[in-house]
């Protein structure tokens, strides 16, 4: 599952158009555009709005684990040219003075940058930092739901000391659209990482099927999960395994059977 958290419609438009996302008619707290395993949520400007949107969409997708996150938006900078795309390696919050560090787990080809998240707009440019109004809140909230490697911020420079895009929506969309192929490549890489993590989980429907075979205590569920995560990670196991378990009528028999299978398979490492 990949979620884009974007403050404004004009910033989200290139992503919506590129992926052909459709606006959800059933979600009303925030505008959400979606398709398959991708959501794009329009949060509104500022930390509070971003935090609320991030937490809300995380709750909506609580069964779709893991979630990969991208905060996409525009930023101001005196150290970059207009329209430059950067990947954020460090986020500083101006109100709390806290720092956050998205993990650069793959080489995106984008220039790294330090993003300072402000509580209100400013034209005081810092020589070594870019400015936005959402990244710190996004990162702090999203990492409650996913590990930091899956939570990334990408910014497109829309304001410099010499030139400001301001509220020119078409211009903002155009600046972001110039980088849509790179952004999509980044999203693909991030999605692949999330899939690596997801492959280690027991799918919800499989878990429900197995739990319905017998009554399991919490401790038994823990033992069950341990064996299943291993066995289901081995190729070609799932359907045959679940069918076998349906014939065993008690939790202890099921667990013993699974643990035996594990021990037999692991003789050869």
């Amino acid at each position, binding site marked *: 599952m990949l979620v884009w958290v974007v403050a404004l419609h004009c910033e989200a438009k290139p992503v919506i158009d590129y992926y052909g996302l459709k606006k959800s008619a059933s979600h009303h707290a925030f505008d959400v555009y979606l398709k398959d395993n991708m959501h794009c949520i329009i949060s509104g400007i500022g930390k509070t709005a971003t935090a609320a949107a991030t937490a809300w969409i995380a709750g909506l997708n609580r069964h779709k684990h893991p979630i990969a996150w991208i905060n996409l938006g525009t930023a101001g900078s005196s150290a970059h040219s207009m329209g430059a795309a950067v990947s954020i*390696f460090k986020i500083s919050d101006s109100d709390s003075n806290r*720092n956050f560090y998205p993990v650069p*787990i793959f080489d995106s080809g984008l220039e790294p940058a330090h993003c300072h998240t402000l509580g209100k707009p400013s034209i005081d440019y810092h020589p070594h930092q870019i400015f936005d109004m959402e990244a710190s809140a996004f990162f702090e909230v999203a990492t409650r739901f996913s590990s930091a490697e899956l939570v990334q911020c990408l910014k497109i420079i829309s304001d410099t000391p010499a030139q400001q895009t301001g509220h020119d929506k078409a211009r903002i969309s155009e600046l972001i659209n110039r980088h849509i192929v790179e952004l999509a490549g980044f999203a693909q890489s991030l999605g692949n990482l999330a899939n690596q993590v997801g492959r280690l989980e027991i799918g919800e429907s499989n878990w429900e099927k197995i739990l319905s075979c017998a009554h399991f205590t919490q401790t038994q569920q823990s033992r069950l999960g341990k064996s299943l995560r291993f066995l289901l990670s081995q190729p070609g196991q799932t359907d045959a395994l679940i069918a076998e378990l349906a014939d065993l009528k008690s939790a202890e028999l099921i667990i013993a059977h699974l643990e035996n299978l594990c021990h037999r398979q692991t003789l050869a490492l």
Partner: protein
Amino acid sequence: MVSCVYVESEVRQYPRTLQIIKQLKSTPLIEIEHYGEVFNPRAQNFRLQKSNPGLIIARKHKGQVLKTPKSYGIGGYHNYYFSHMLNCLYDCRYCFLQGMYRSAHQLVFVNYEDFAAEISQIATRYDPEPVWFFSGYDCDSLANDPLTRFVEYFVPVFAELGNSWMELRTKSTQVRQLLKLEPCSRVVTAFSFTDQYSHRKLEHGVASIKKRLDAMQALVEAGWPIGLRLDPIIYHSNYQSEFVQLLQQIFSVIDATALHSVSLGAFRLPKDNYKQVHRLYPDEPLFAQNLTLDKDIISYPLTLEQEMISFCEQKLLQWIPPEIYFPCNWHD
């Protein structure tokens, strides 16, 4: 080599920091206040990070040298360990480091002088009794040596401390710096080995057995004492024949009389480390084996472990004298 370099502001201008940064010149550099900001946050996935870790350069403010756990030692009475670096270049699936820290970033403490001062204090306290200092507890002692220049700094420190011994525990072949220095009889480079099958399956990024033996032999020829650490012994259906082959391979290159010490131990992990590692690697056959809990340690069932150690010990003692053999007695 590393995805990025995080540097604490406090050590940004240290000569050792500048030298490391110079070697990693095209790597993004991020300034931080304290290594804990990057190393400690909960929401990190060690397994994902391990594929492309960063490097953190920091200062260790306290606890530079600590006493070893009770069963950790090779005959000495006073045993300490010090970690100039946390996390390892290699990715061995049986390693307790996987479950030790939330981050897989390599963290190097550049205030070597503070470590040396504490080592010297401890050595003086016990003088003239010998004191052992183990350097490979939280990392591989030599794997990052070209970057950290650990050997260049610390070997001369130990050369000056007449009652102090240092063990450099490694799976690396980075012995170049040692070969440039005058050998010190109280610095033992101990090479860890598992059998060929376990090495292939579990030791990702580690040099071949042959290359490590070549490095060992180079040290022997230069006059350095070496050790052998056959730890962990991993259970699999052919562990016996593989262990015998390993010994044959080792002793076809290394003369047993050149060995300072040999230790042997079966696979084991502290309970909390095991839980964490198993959560990260649920697909790993090693962790799905029949393992039991005893005194907060996850290991093979006692009878199996005893059988493995008994077999391996018997084969090993056909090659080495018992005086240099130190079994890992973690059950004591």
